[in-house]
């Protein structure tokens, strides 16, 4: 396809000499006084750009026939995190020259793509992390709908991310609507959205913001227990809600958890998931309180959850599972008794045998 010229759709009215001249003089002055008045040049350049870009009617037409407004809300940019210290051309590199050089873009997406690396100059760490992310992965496979920096952070009106925290799920909901709605009804979502509890996780707390892993990958799945454990092993935090901070430890000591720990090595499991992870019993975005009547781990519902893997498990099968309790005389006396027995028996037998060996050596070698 032949790329068309990308130019403002109508001849700019005020792009003539005097303004440009003033801007140049201002820029020269700014350079001279910049050690003292470093910010002046940014403000002056912004003013220069706004001479045209404050105009509602300013649009650009792309080769595919679509047009896009070029108006920038000056107060919005001034109020953004960058308002005080960036000037337009810091991001819009190559647009310092007025009038702008002609450029060829087929679509708005093409045009936006030309700014894909604009943030890299300052935010190199986050940019590099995003290269490991799932969004970049689908982009590199040719999906132009894959989001990059401004799709989540915005462009001219960028604010500090995650303030308020509920804003994060709204950002992700632009594309992941169903998941976001499910999360909003979960124990985590409700607590944040209805209870305004800032302890609860939003999307990025689990999925990360830039190096977002593919949640279907085995490596990610096998890491989920540690992920949940980030909060659920924090005693101070869990005590606040009357929750046990021992859940990860008891899971890992169980057959399922032990398998999950070891499954990270060697070949990935042949049959998809090798073992039950936190999310297999508790759910993912739809996690409920364990005493919620709809919770999949509530005693009445538990056998159905077990049957997801142990097909044909009898009604009483959950009795084989200790519900994250440490064995004690009250909970699981049999297991506790066996544990206690070996705690005494192993040292007893081994020390008895070691004693006999030492005595034998003492007699045979030293005192025959």
């Amino acid at each position, binding site marked *: 396809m032949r790329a068309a010229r990308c130019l403002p759709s109508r001849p700019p009215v005020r792009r003539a000499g005097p303004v440009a001249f003033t801007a140049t003089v201002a820029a020269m002055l700014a350079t001279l006084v910049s050690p003292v008045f470093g910010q002046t040049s940014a403000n002056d350049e912004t003013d220069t750009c706004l001479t045209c870009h404050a105009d509602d009617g300013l649009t650009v037409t792309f080769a595919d026939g679509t047009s896009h407004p070029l108006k920038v809300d000056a107060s919005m940019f001034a109020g953004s995190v960058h308002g005080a210290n960036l000037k337009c051309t810091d991001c819009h590199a190559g647009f310092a020259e007025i009038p702008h050089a002609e450029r060829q873009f087929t679509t708005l997406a093409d045009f936006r793509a030309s700014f894909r690396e604009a943030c890299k100059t300052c935010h190199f760490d986050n940019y590099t992390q995003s290269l490991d992310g799932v969004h970049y992965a689908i982009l590199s496979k040719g999906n132009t709908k894959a989001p990059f920096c401004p799709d989540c952070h915005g462009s001219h009106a960028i604010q500090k991310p995650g303030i308020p925290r509920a804003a994060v799920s709204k950002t992700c909901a632009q594309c992941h609507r169903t998941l976001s709605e499910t999360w909003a009804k979960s124990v985590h979502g409700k607590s944040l959205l209805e209870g305004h509890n800032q302890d609860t996780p939003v999307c990025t707390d689990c999925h990360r913001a830039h190096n977002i892993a593919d949640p279907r990958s085995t490596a990610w799945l096998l890491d989920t227990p540690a992920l949940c454990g980030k909060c659920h092993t924090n005693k101070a935090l869990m005590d606040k809600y009357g929750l046990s901070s021992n859940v990860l430890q008891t899971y890992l000591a169980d*057959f399922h958890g032990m398998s999950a720990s*070891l499954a990270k090595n060697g070949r990935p499991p042949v049959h998809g998931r090798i073992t039950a992870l936190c999310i297999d019993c508790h759910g993912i975005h739809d996690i409920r309180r364990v005493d919620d009547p709809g919770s999949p781990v509530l005693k009445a519902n538990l056998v159905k959850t077990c049957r997801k893997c142990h097909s044909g498990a009898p009604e009483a099968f959950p009795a*084989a599972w200790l519900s994250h309790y440490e064995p004690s005389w009250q909970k699981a006396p049999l297991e506790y008794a*066996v544990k206690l027995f070996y705690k005494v028996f192993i040292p007893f*037998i081994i020390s008895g045998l070691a*004693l006999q060996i030492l005595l*034998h050596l003492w007699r045979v070698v030293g005192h025959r």
Partner: protein
Amino acid sequence: MTDTFVRFTSRQRGEHLLVMTLFTMLAVTGFPQKFYASSWSHGMVTVFGGIERLRWVHRTAGILFALLTAWHIALVTLEVVRGKTRASLVPLKKDFTDAIVTLRYYLGLVDRQAAFDRFDYRQKFEYWGLLLGSMLMIVTGLILYLPLLAFRLFPGEFIPAAKVAHSNEGLMALLVVIIWHIYNAHLSPDVFPFDTSIFTGRISLHRMRHEHPLELERIAQPEPYAAIGRTDGQQGYPRLQAVMTLAAAPLLGALFVMFLPFVGVALVLKQGGAYCLALARRLLDRQTSS
């Protein structure tokens, strides 16, 4: 008279080889699962190509081990029922007294070691420890392998309890083999560097004199089988007595396994206590005299 005696039949030597191989395989594939958090476990899983393959090896070795144990018990039972064996591994009253005599000898309280028959009390301890431990490992292993089937036979709580028992009993078995068996078969000054009799099947006259004098005596002057109970002239051991011995053997074995370390600890504590008392008395005497 020959220099060596036949100590083990080829079947017994084969059984030992199989137990040795399977035990090693089970330990190598079992302990990474017990110590799932340590880095060498993860390395071992990688060597086997993943947890699924490691478990496949562990379970296959476990099933073979169970078959071997069943075969051994069946053969021994048959021999005892037919009256073809002396059942020389059954713990007797003499073993309990032998253990005490030996420990007193080690401590220097008596001058002569106890005289042993075909198997001394330490060998019986190891045999019964292995047999009883294996049975526990096989039952708990099968519970973990087939939790749904196990659930039909036992209450649900047996499944997590079986896991604890399997893992701890396995650790104990490994420690007993590493500490006790390796000492007695390799490191003990009596046999160093290698007691080869379980592989060659033969034992020297010298060792027979020292370690199994009662058996040597019996071989030198073979008593007729009739002398120990049979009157009908047929070759063999008394059947009823043998069957009853066999039935009681596991219980006796269990008692014996638990008794032995107890004796060791008790005797050492007693002797150590007496030594400390004597030392204290001597020190007191010295102080009063000066």
